[in-house]
C-alpha cells in the first residue's frame, strides 16, 4: 500500500478529520486557498493559516453533462459556503446528479475519496461534499 497525498495543498489529511485550510489576511480577514503575494482586498501582506469548517450549504451548483476529456459525467459541481467562513468549489458526491436531488441551499459536509494513483502507488486524495 502506497502513501496518500492531498490533491491540493489546502486539503489537510493529517491529524484530526480531513478539512480545508485557508490563508487569512491578518488585516481584513479575507480568506484564500492559493499561494499569496498580497491581499486582493486590502493589499496588506501578512497572512495566518486557518482551519475551515467541514459543513456548509450549497450556494450554487451545475450538473455537468458535457465535460473535459476523461472526466466521467454527469457530475455535480457546487459552490459551498462553509459554516464559520470560507467559500469553496467542488463536486457534490453520493447524490443522484439531477435537479430533483441536488438543491440550492442543501446542507452538506466534506468527504474525501481517492482521485488517482501514481506509478509509485501514491494515492491522490480529493475532497467533495455530500448531503449532511
Amino acid at each position, binding site marked *: 500500500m502506497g502513501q496518500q497525498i492531498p490533491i491540493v495543498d489546502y486539503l489537510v489529511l493529517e491529524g484530526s478529520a480531513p478539512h480545508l485550510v485557508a490563508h487569512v489576511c491578518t488585516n481584513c480577514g479575507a480568506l484564500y486557498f492559493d499561494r499569496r503575494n498580497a491581499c486582493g482586498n486590502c493589499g496588506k501582506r501578512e497572512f495566518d493559516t486557518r482551519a475551515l469548517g467541514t459543513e456548509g450549504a450549497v450556494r450554487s451548483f*451545475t450538473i455537468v453533462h458535457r465535460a*473535459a476529456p476523461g472526466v466521467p459525467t454527469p457530475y455535480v459541481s457546487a459552490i459551498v459556503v462553509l459554516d464559520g467562513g470560507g*467559500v469553496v468549489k467542488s463536486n457534490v458526491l453520493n447524490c443522484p446528479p439531477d435537479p430533483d436531488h441536488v438543491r440550492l441551499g442543501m446542507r452538506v459536509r466534506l468527504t474525501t475519496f481517492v482521485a488517482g494513483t*501514481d506509478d509509485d502507488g501514491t494515492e491522490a486524495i480529493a475532497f467533495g461534499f455530500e448531503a449532511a
Partner: protein
Amino acid sequence: MSGDNVWVLGAAMTKFGRYADKDLVDLGSDAALDALDDGGVTIHDMDVLAAGNMAEAMSGVGQRIQKQIGQTGIPVYNVTNACATGATAIRSVYLAIKAGEADMGLAIGVEKMGKQGLLGAAGKARGDRKVFEPGGRYGAVMGVEGVLGTGLMPGVFAQAGMEYANEHDGVGFEQFAKVAEKNHAHSTLNPLAQYQKAFSLDEVMNAEMMSYPNTLLMCCPTGDGAAAVVLVSEERLRSLSPEQRSRAVKISASVMTSDPWTDTDQVQPDVNTLTRQAAAKAYDIAGVDPQDLDLVELHDCFATAELIHYDNLQLCKPGDAGKFIDERGPWRDGAIPVNVSGGLISKGHPLGATGIANVYEVSTHLRGEAGDRQIPDARVGLTHVIGLGSACAIHVLEKAAL
C-alpha cells in the same frame, strides 16, 4: 464636456460563422475596409489603430491587417482582454482621441475559432504525471477539472445563474430557457447572425444538456468573424459632410471596470459586481436612465448570464429578472428589447469581434438602417461585454444632432 465627445463615424461587421476560405487577416480587413467605407473615410485619415484578438494575440494582428489595407505609420495597439477584447480595442482608440493625440481612429476586432469546443478547461491534463508532485498556486498534484468542481464556461455561467436563482424567487430552468428562445427568435431577422433559426421553449429545454441549467441551445457557439468601427472627435466630425454628420452616433459613455474583490470571486467568478459598477457609472456619465434605453446588446454567452444582467444593468426592478423575461420585457416588442441581433447565443461569439459587433448593432438601429430587425425610433442604446477574469465594458450610444 459636450465638445469632448467621441462619435462612431463608421461601423461594419462580417457575417459571423465559419470561414474555411478566409484567415484572420481576411476577416479583419473585410470589416476594417467596410467600416472605413461606411464612414466615408480612408485608412489615410486614421491617426491610430487598435486591433483586438485572442487566438493569435502574439502575432501583431493590427500590423498584419495594416499590411493589407494600408501601412501609414500610425501607432497600432494590439489588445487582448478575454471576451471584452473588442471593446478594449474601441477604448484604446477612444482614449487616444480623448487624450488629444488622435482625431480619428480605427478599432478592429477579429477571431477565428472554428469548431473549438468547450472553452476554459484549466490546469493540467489528467494522467500527465507519473509521480504526484504538488505544483502551481494550489499545490495540485493532478488536474482538478471535474474533480474539484468545474471551470468550463458552460458550468461557470450556470453556477452564476444558479446563484441568482438561490437568492431570488421565480427564477429557474424555464426562465433561463426563455432567454434562449427569445434570442434564437430574434436572430431570424438578422442576416449577419451565425444561426437564424427559431426554436420553441420545449426544444430549448429538451436540447442536449451541457451544464444544467444550460442546454446546447442556451450556449453561444464558437465561430469566426470580425467587426470594426471608425471613431472620430467631435471637432473633426464638425468638418465632415452633412451626410457623415447625420449618420454619426454619439458615444455618451464608455466605461470599463475589472472585478473588485468579493469574498467568493477567486473561487467562482463574480460577473455581477463589475457590471453593476460599470452600469451605474455609464448611466451617470451619459445622463441616461435605464428605462430610457430603446435597445440593449448584452453579453449572453450563456442564457444564465443574460438573465442576471437584466438585474445588473437595472433593466428590471431588483430581483425581478425572472419576472422580466416571463413578461417578455426583453423581447423586441417588449419594454426594453435585449439582443435583437440574436445575441451571442445565435448571432455568434468570435471572441475578439464581439465587443465591436454590439456597437455596430446598436449604431445601425440608431441610424435607422437595421432593416427587418429595426427597433422603431431607436434613439439611445447600450452595449455590454464581460471578459471573464474579469473585464466589463459598457458603451451608451445615442442618436444626436451635431
